């Protein structure tokens, strides 16, 4: 383990270095396969473009559908990328080594999740305003859309990590992961799409955005522990 | 009596509900019985006497 501390104590001082270590490592690995990241982003764009083709290009209807479509596509894109979080490390035995390291496992998992979000959720959130224009989302709506996605996509990564860890190495893998995680995504979807909707309705997005923020705090604190427990379960 | 079955015109919905519930309950009980039978069979085969008998080609 490059640069890992020699001591085996799990004190509070090992948390941030652990997060940083996992974050830097996963970012380096992700940036090596930039093409894969690009493909996932492209998936998002394509899915968003499918809905008008399947329904109607009529602007009013698109404006109604838009926030929902953009959010559901973000959910699907998140699902698609979740296996990347643990699967490769699990397959070649690195995950076991990581779990044995002196850093607290929840800290390492947090670092991994952060790297995952930076390479999947963040690009989606930044790209969304552009796609929002396709759906007649305008002005303040686009701002709120981006803000909501910036708050919501980390929650998707956090909750998704729990599912990804629980389903490590299982045959059914991907679809099982979707079944486990999508019900948990529902509140994020409701408040995220609802934020943009409420702007369209002239009601103001404060409530929705605040709830997303609160959800992010709770998930950020709780999910790494649940995911770390799930990783240990898969490794035993 | 026919009033009872008609349920004020809502017979399909009321009897459909009660009937479907009875069906689901019956299915659960029957499938549990079948699962128990299979489990008892497997348990019987796994007892030490039967295991040795199986390896000796008796079972």
């Amino acid at each position, binding site marked *: 383990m490059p640069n890992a501390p020699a001591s085996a104590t799990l004190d509070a001082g090992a948390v941030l270095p652990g997060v940083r270590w996992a974050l830097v490592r996963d970012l380096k690995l992700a940036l090596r396969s930039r093409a894969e990241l690009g493909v996932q982003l492209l998936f998002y764009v394509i899915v968003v473009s499918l809905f008008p083709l399947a329904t109607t290009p009529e602007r009013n209807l698109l404006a109604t559908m838009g926030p929902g479509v953009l959010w559901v596509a973000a959910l699907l894109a998140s699902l698609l990328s979740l296996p990347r979080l643990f699967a490769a490390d699990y397959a070649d035995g690195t995950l076991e080594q990581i779990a044995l390291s002196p850093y607290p496992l929840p800290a390492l998992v947090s670092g991994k999740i952060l790297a995952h979000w930076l390479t999947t959720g963040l690009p989606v959130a930044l790209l969304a305003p552009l796609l929002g224009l396709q759906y007649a989302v305008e002005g303040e709506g686009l701002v709120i859309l981006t803000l909501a996605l910036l708050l919501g996509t980390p929650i998707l990564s956090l909750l998704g990590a729990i599912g990804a860890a629980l389903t490590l190495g299982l045959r059914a893998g991907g679809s099982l992961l979707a079944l486990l995680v999508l019900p948990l995504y529902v509140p994020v979807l409701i408040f995220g799409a609802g934020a943009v909707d409420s702007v369209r309705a002239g009601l103001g997005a404060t409530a929705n955005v605040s709830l997303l923020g609160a959800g992010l705090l709770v998930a950020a604190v709780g999910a790494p522990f649940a995911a770390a427990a799930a990783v240990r379960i898969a490794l035993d | 009596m026919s009033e009872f079955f008609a*349920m004020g015109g809502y017979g399909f919905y009321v009897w*459909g509900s009660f009937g479907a519930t009875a069906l689901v309950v019956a299915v659960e009980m029957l499938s549990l019985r079948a699962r128990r039978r299979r489990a008892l069979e497997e348990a019987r085969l796994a007892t030490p006497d039967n295991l040795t008998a199986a390896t000796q080609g008796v079972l």
Partner: protein
Amino acid sequence: MTSSNWFRYSSPATFYPVAGRMIPWFGWSAAVLAAIGVWIGLAIAPTDFQQGDAYRIIFIHVASAWMSMFIYIVMAMWSALFLGFNTRLSAMMAQAMAPTGALMTFIALLTGSLWGKPTWGTYWAWDARMTSELILLFLYLGVIALRNAIDDPRRADRACAVLSLVGAINVPIIYFSVKWWNTLHQGSSVSLTAAPKMAMTMLTGMLIMALAAWFYAIAATLFRVRVIMLERERGAAWVGELQEVKSR
């Protein structure tokens, strides 16, 4: 009552006969209660002024909906007990409850849908309670699917326990968000599957059906947990000594 007494029952070998004695008691009580409840629901309770005889579906719908939520909570409690005390039986109880809970949820959805059509004109109306019930069904199916996907029983126990607890924590959040979503979009203050104003007989009938559903769920769970014990403890000595295994 010392703690050692409780832990004595946490071994499958000791709980198996205990459960076996409990099943007929709960099963027959459920049958009698259900008979009384159905009789009240279909024959005794008066026809509702607004909904006609269609409202009689609530005698099943409410009982199954309550049970679907109750069973999930109890399943989560057994999961917590398992993660805390590492008792195999706790995990088996959680495993045994999931299918019954899923079926209760299914019945709640089906009867709710059949109630909705004559009363509100549509089989599915995306109201808060039915939508939450649907998501609850997905949560149940997820736990069951995860159990089936993992071959190692120990790993399955622990994974399903974590999943159940994560789900249980999320259920209030999901319900709150769905209610929020629904009030925003419905606008009207009428709850879509509102029960009619309760005459005493209606209330009694509903409570009796709820009790019947509860006892049935207990009987089904105990029956299933015994089967699970037989499946998972197959080679154990105590299983070989059972009458029903020896006498076949």
